[in-house]
């Protein structure tokens, strides 16, 4: 189980760094909260019609904020050369990817969990349910998988601030659909079977892209 231990080490390192500097989680949280606040002005939140849009607002804000946070996270790492140091270590590339993915996933999951009560307060809609936890978990896994892969690929590009969102956001659109639809079924509709359909779709998406990313990561960091 040496690989599991290595994965945990890499993830723990990232989390320890984050606890000290608190960059990524604050970026994601701050940006998404700002977007929520802007939407309280621009949408008339008292009406039932605009409450239908709250899951969409939630996941859009999280997606944009995560793209920003990913940029920030990997930029400093590549600039200081620590990532190359990790590549030089005698660890398999998949282990590195899974370790980085785990770190990113934790940041994103914590940020979405904290955004849930913020959205509940701002929009008067109850997103505080057990199923929300499941949705956030499943969608965060998918976002982190593709996010980590794309971030490591694009952070060395000249125009990384536009390159990462341009790649990342179209590729994760099925996940956004799944998140919005399943959250809508929670809060507005009462169609539990649709909720299960979307969650299982998101799980399938996560599994598929996790496997593909692990296989393809090997090619993105070779020199």
């Amino acid at each position, binding site marked *: 189980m040496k690989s599991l231990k290595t994965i945990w080490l890499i993830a723990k390192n990232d989390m320890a760094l984050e606890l000290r500097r608190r960059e990524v989680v604050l970026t994601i949280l701050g940006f998404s909260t700002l977007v929520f606040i802007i939407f309280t002005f621009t949408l008339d939140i008292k009406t039932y019609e605009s409450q239908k849009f709250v899951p969409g607002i939630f996941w859009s804000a999280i997606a944009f904020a995560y793209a920003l946070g990913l940029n920030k996270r990997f930029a400093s790492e590549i600039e200081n050369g620590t990532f190359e140091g990790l590549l030089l270590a005698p660890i398999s590339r998949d282990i590195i990817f899974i370790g980085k993915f785990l770190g990113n996933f934790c940041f994103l999951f914590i940020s979405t969990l904290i955004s849930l009560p913020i959205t509940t307060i701002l929009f008067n809609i109850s997103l505080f349910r057990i199923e929300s936890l499941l949705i956030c978990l499943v969608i965060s896994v998918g976002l982190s998988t593709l996010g980590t892969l794309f971030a490591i690929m694009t952070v060395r590009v000249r125009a990384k601030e536009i390159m990462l969102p341009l790649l990342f956001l179209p590729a994760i659109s099925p996940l956004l659909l799944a998140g919005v639809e399943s959250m809508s079924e929670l809060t507005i509709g009462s169609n539990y079977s649709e909720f299960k359909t979307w969650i299982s779709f998101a799980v*399938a998406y996560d599994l598929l892209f996790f496997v593909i990313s692990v296989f393809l990561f090997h090619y993105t960091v070779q020199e």
Partner: protein
Amino acid sequence: MIYRYQTKLLVSIFLASIYFFSVNVDPIVAETPEKKITNGFITNIVTNEENTTIISVTESDGKTSNLKINPETNIGIESVAGERWVSIFSEKPQESITRLKDQQSRLIVLTVVHDGESILSISNADKRDLELNLQYLFIVFMITWIVFFAYIFYLSRRQNAINRDIKLLKSQPSYEKETK
């Protein structure tokens, strides 16, 4: 670089994802019933006791069919002002019946898509003037061809530049030296 048990793990996760996908594959393409089209105007709208609305459509050769409107019927009709109104019958039943009665009184020809008994959609059989909206056709074809020709032009310019470069290289005496 991947150990065998890791490969097996990854392959099994991949197969699990395929399973999850296949669980979701409901018959999205259900068996569509045989679709028939009737072009005619409405002669009668009747709502019976079970709250189903039956309309009678008369075609140009005098044949009348009685067809039932069900809750999923799509309705897309134009008002007198020319505004297109689109809805599903179950969402606005009263307004749909009012608008259909308006179409009936103006003797507007409608296109009714049905399966022999219940209606799938009702819409205006417009385009009495077959030349209508020709500008859209023109714009689409013109822009498509302009884009394709612009791309080919750009590529041929690049090719010419490279050919010039190659010719220049070949004419220089140092080319012979480099390639010997």
